[in-house]
């Protein structure tokens, strides 16, 4: 069985938010919800200050904190190493949001239109997006998160953010295969996990910014 993973090469990422918006478009996430968030940071003092964007996804941890704290059993790890949330089981206690070190989980109460000041009904796209959100694996009041676009992966495609990335800074593959592109990148290019001190063993690795 594969253990799906990500490599995000910070050297290549220039912080354009393409992944974040591509994720929104692919998964029809409601206003305020971004499963592939980008976070900007600055370090150092003028004139030697540096800036670097950190694009994130769900880390699909091998030992996920969200699953440990989930009281209902809604959170499970599937055979591909993807952490799933069962919308029928989740009660929306948000404990997982407190426990996830990576901010991967978000919750939304209802569908808010992006055009609140406009008269009339939802436009055809928003109506479509709302329906897909409601009929898909996510929903309202429950914890929602990135699942590495499993619907695309099953069709043999990459997650939407990977295909969108202009700088080709994102790689998707199988961590359990030592010969996969991502396994090789992690070995050869000093791949690291974010905040290993939380002991969750994330499946998303980063390559150093410089």
């Amino acid at each position, binding site marked *: 069985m594969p253990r799906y993973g990500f490599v995000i090469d910070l050297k290549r990422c220039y912080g354009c938010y393409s992944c974040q918006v591509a994720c929104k478009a692919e998964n029809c996430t409601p206003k305020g919800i971004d499963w592939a968030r980008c976070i900007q940071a600055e370090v150092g003092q003028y004139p030697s200050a540096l800036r670097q964007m950190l694009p994130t996804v769900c880390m699909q941890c091998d030992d996920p904190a969200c699953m440990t704290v989930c009281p209902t059993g*809604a959170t499970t790890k599937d055979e591909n190493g993807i952490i799933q949330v069962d919308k029928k089981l989740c*009660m929306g206690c948000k404990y997982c949001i407190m426990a996830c*070190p990576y901010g991967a989980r978000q919750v939304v109460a209802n569908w808010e239109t992006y055009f609140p000041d406009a008269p009339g009904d939802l436009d055809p796209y928003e109506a479509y997006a709302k329906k897909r959100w409601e009929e898909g694996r996510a929903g309202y009041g429950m914890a929602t998160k990135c699942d590495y676009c499993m619907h695309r992966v099953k069709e043999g495609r990459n997650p939407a953010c990977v295909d969108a990335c202009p700088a080709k800074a994102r790689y998707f593959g199988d961590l359990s295969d030592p010969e996969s592109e991502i396994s090789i990148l992690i070995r050869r290019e000093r791949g690291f996990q974010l905040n290993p001190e939380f002991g969750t063993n994330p499946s998303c690795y980063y390559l150093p910014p410089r």
Partner: protein
Amino acid sequence: MKMNPQSKWGWEVAAYLFLAGLGAGAYVFGVLVDLQGWSDAVARIGVILGLPCVFIGCMFLVLDLGTPSNFWRAAMRPNTSWIGRGTIIISLFMIINAVHIAFWIWPFGSVLQGADAARNFIAVLGVIFAFGTMVYTGILLGAARPIAFWSTALLPLLFLVSALSTGAMAIALIGTLAGVEHEVIAPLIRIDTLLLILELIVLGFYMQGTHRVEESRASAQLVMAGQLAGMFWFGVVAVGLLVPLFLDLLAGAAAWSAVLGSVCGIVGGLILRKVVLAGGVYAPLKAGRFEYALPRQ
């Protein structure tokens, strides 16, 4: 770098933590008084206060759920989840508390009259689960490891002391209002005085303990000098601790001071929960020299 606190657990969860603690605390004192035989009225107030407080607290939690219709699933994973464990502890506490109350209620009261051994057994069992409930509210937060402000053994202790103290004050308040003579309430207030002093000390240690990592330093900053400072210094320290403490020390004998002090202390207990929740700053993500604040959702 400005780090962000969690924003998803608000007043509802604070009310839950607070009421569960207060209810369990009141129950403990009810049992204590009962076992000591100081005052039947006070004992009954304490024991009877436990159940509705904890129950209303749980209702607040249900209110906070995104999908309340699934609330009954809360205990499906007690093997790993502290909410699961807590649900069982609190449920058992409520059942035991209900049984305890039944001893005094018609028609059970007449049947069980005189079954003191059984009542004492239930009481001891109840106290164990009451302590479980009080401590659990702190442990629950502690399992959220990226929030260092919560991940400390001092938090369950702080919540325990606060729960006992607010429980005692709740009995004192109801008792005084119900016309129970002051001499019966007074020992409770003396115990509460000690609890208030202890709580101040624990709170001091708790805040002092935040120096270890930057996210809890940010929490302490937020709580003591940032957006929550007013709530903390005025609500928790002044109103919640110092006012009842001074009233206890200076005017401990007066009924008005028992009422005022208790109301202040109870309000302070609620604000304490809120401040701790709202001050829960996430650890930054680290990539080399760069540190990233998790965005506020």
